[in-house]
């Protein structure tokens, strides 16, 4: 059964200006709204400035580096990542960390999974599950030892598939380990 609505007389319910034109304006409300608008604009400007600075990732504030306690490797990473946004984490090995032309690095699985490790450059010789993570072995060549050449660098191409806070743990076979928190913005 369709609902039937009774007809109602028209009432002059809209507020008039100068008692001659029905506008229904509410200047008191509008003044409050203008103040609110300005506060929101200020907030927008603040957010944009913070974004440029990297407070939400991909900027100077987000860039970070961690050195192993024994100086065997240096990790350059973004402490603030963004959901589904590619980034690069680099691990630089010092000559002391290279044995028989090989460098080894261990990454916690808790880090590898949520941060979406897409590929590793160069490709590791081996990837072995170990201590709740993966131990990677890279061929970096003997020539790096004791030379002035640039420290061998491994790059991890990341693309986080989850937003949240994740613990980063990286270590080597000698027991040197660094850990920190990575924030992934939605």
């Amino acid at each position, binding site marked *: 059964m369709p609902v039937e609505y009774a007809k109602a007389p028209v009432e002059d319910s809209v507020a008039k*200006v*100068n008692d*001659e*034109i029905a*506008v*229904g*304006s*509410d*200047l008191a*409300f*509008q003044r409050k*709204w*203008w103040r*609110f*608008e300005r506060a*929101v*604009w200020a907030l927008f400007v603040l957010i944009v400035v913070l974004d440029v600075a990297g407070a939400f990732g991909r900027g100077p504030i987000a860039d970070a580096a961690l050195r192993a306690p024994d100086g065997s490797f240096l990790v350059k990473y973004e402490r603030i990542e963004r959901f*589904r946004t590619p980034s690069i984490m680099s691990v630089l090995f010092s000559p002391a960390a290279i044995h028989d032309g090989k460098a080894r690095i261990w990454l916690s699985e808790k880090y590898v999974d949520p941060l979406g490790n897409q590929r590793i450059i160069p490709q590791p010789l081996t990837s072995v599950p170990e201590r709740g993570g993966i131990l990677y072995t890279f061929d970096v060549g003997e020539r790096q030892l004791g030379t002035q050449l640039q420290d061998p660098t491994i790059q991890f191409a990341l693309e986080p598939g989850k937003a949240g806070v994740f613990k980063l743990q990286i270590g080597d076979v000698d027991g040197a380990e660094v850990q920190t928190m990575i924030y992934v913005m939605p």
Partner: protein
Amino acid sequence: MGTIGRAILGYCFMLGVVRVIGRRPGAQMTPFEFVLIFFIGGITIQSIVGDDRSMTNAVCVVMTVGMMHVLVAWLKQKYPAFGRVVDGTPLVLMENGEWIPETMHNMRVQDTDIMAAARARGLKDLTCVKYAILERNGAISVIEVETKEGGGPAEDDKSSAGAEGDRTGHP
């Protein structure tokens, strides 16, 4: 599920942003406003849809946005205060042939905007305008100064072609 949540969040965010930016974008589509609307829409849709380009996702997002629209319309009708927040209220820009500078300044409306509305009504200059009202949808309604010739009705209380009622279908 994530897409639906992002669509709801995106709808609320867009509604809020467009509201605090001001009314001009909705009604007076100069190239300046076109750039704004297309940019905001284009950038938002990427994060809402994500990498799920399936028809299922598109249909669900469209239905979500449609239902959000119905919900907001219902809330506006049920709670007038909510309607004022979402749509604002009409504002008088010119009263008895005098500017209201506070409203003009805060709504970022120029005299040329009012003249454009006056021309649409067939008026030759601003001295012919008695009232100019910025409607909730951003259109400017113009009420003419009464004409003494012919002793006809004092004022024509029909609003300009861009008036809100004409566009939305309801007052």
